[in-house]
């Protein structure tokens, strides 16, 4: 059966690594920089530069090498698909590898960010960015529910496997059809859960006051945070410089 253990790579790990002790603001800037550069450049050289200069040091700082490896292992089929499809349509090996690597970079960057940033930090960060509270709340709640939904999806897989469902059985079309008994209950349970959550929130007066007050916010950035920010800017500049050489 398909295992959803890879979603654990996106779960907050607690204040265990040096990366998780960094303020979310410089981490967000690093994430956005790595993402924008990876999407802006389509050459293999640029993707390799981003991976080596921007991503690897953060993996080391986060101590997430083993998590990243298991994440890559469980999503390898997706990367293979991206590479394969690009190669089929372009016949350009270097470009296809770059596209595969781009996906790896994006997944690893998001995993490193979410693994090291608590949802309350995310919420504070978004509030600081003047994003409306209902958007902040919706976003952080969605993030917080990922492990719960993953667990529910695993239960659904177990329930269907117990009735003899084999995902890998039959032709390609058959295999795609085999996913229906998984996708329908996953979707229905997610929708039902969202309704239940909405009702639970409303019954506790969510949205009663338009202007919310916050007891705590993000603390001022420390020297380490500023160093991380400076390093991110320097890394981005180095990638731009080396990629255009």
């Amino acid at each position, binding site marked *: *059966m398909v295992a959803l*253990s890879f979603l*654990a790579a996106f779960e907050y790990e607690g204040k265990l690594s040096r990366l998780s002790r960094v303020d979310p603001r410089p981490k967000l800037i690093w994430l956005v920089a790595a993402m924008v550069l990876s999407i802006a450049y389509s050459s293999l050289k640029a993707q390799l530069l981003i991976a080596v200069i921007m991503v690897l040091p953060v993996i080391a700082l986060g101590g997430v090498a083993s998590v990243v490896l298991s994440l890559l292992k469980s999503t390898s089929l997706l990367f293979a698909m991206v590479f394969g499809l690009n190669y089929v349509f372009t016949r350009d090996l270097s470009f296809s590898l770059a596209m595969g690597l781009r996906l790896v970079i994006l997944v690893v960057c998001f995993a490193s960010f979410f693994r090291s940033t608590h949802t309350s930090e995310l919420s504070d960060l978004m509030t600081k960015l003047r994003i409306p509270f209902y958007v902040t709340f919706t976003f952080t709640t969605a993030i917080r529910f990922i492990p719960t939904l993953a667990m*529910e999806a695993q*239960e*659904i897989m*177990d*329930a*269907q*496997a*117990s*009735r*003899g*469902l*084999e995902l890998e*059985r039959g032709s390609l079309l058959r295999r795609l059809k085999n996913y*229906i*008994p*998984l*996708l*329908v*209950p996953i979707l*229905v*349970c997610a929708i*039902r859960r969202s309704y239940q959550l909405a009702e639970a929130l409303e019954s506790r007066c969510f949205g009663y006051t338009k202007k919310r007050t916050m007891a705590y916010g993000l603390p001022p950035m420390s020297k380490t945070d500023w160093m991380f920010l400076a390093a991110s800017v320097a890394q981005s500049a180095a990638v731009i410089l080396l990629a255009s050489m």
Partner: protein
Amino acid sequence: MISVERVCFWYSRGATVLDDVSLTISDGDVVLLMGENGSGKTTLAKLLNGLLKPKSGRVVVDGLDTREHSVAELCRIVGYVPQNPEHQFFAENAAEEVAFGLRNLGLGDKEALDEALSVLRKFGLERYASTPPWQLSGGEMKRLSIASVYAMQPKYLILDEPTIGQDAKQKKALIDLIFGMKAEGKAVLVITHDVEWASELGADKVVLLSKGKVIAEGVPEDIFFNYTLLKSCNLVPPVSVDLYAHLSKRGFSVPRSLDYGVLAESIALKLGGSSVVSGSI
């Protein structure tokens, strides 16, 4: 026979859930598996049909080591009804839902649907044959989830919290169903917190699980009359046991029985009343 031999299990990033658990379920046995929340009951159930594989020790189902066989092979022998019925519904109506497992076993469309309708009838759900499963009430959903696994005629059936949302009539019908399976030589493992229903079930064996270990195993009378054991699993004794304890404390010598009828008859005789058939009112 299902044999659980010194099984240990833990999830990828957590503490040990099952620690050196051994258990035997013989053909035709009705076994109650009870314990506090988080004691590992559902994990143990999932080990029996191969959904989870033991980290150490082994689970053998009719001579098949679950580590060497797929869930698809094992589900023909061990049926597992999950706690939350919504986790398995996907079909457009109840009949199709029941027919799903039968088709997976290789039955043709017509054959599977005919069998599904007959099983729905057995579970009193025939009027919902063309109703979407999500439109049923909580109790009916639970019955449909049991029906969809029962239809596959497994030799061993595992019911995870089957009484949730069931009214008294359906709880009684569940006992009849379990004993119907027992009469056919099939074994049923029931996971429940419903002590009152469990005491009425008349199981062959009760297994108490606490913090991942089997702390007691025995006939219902021995387990349910042991206050200390039940307390250690956050369970309260059934009313019949409490009644027996109160009567004994007041010098009334009554037989140790989980059957109210036996207690009532004994009291009636002591008070000079007449004897009635045990259990009847």
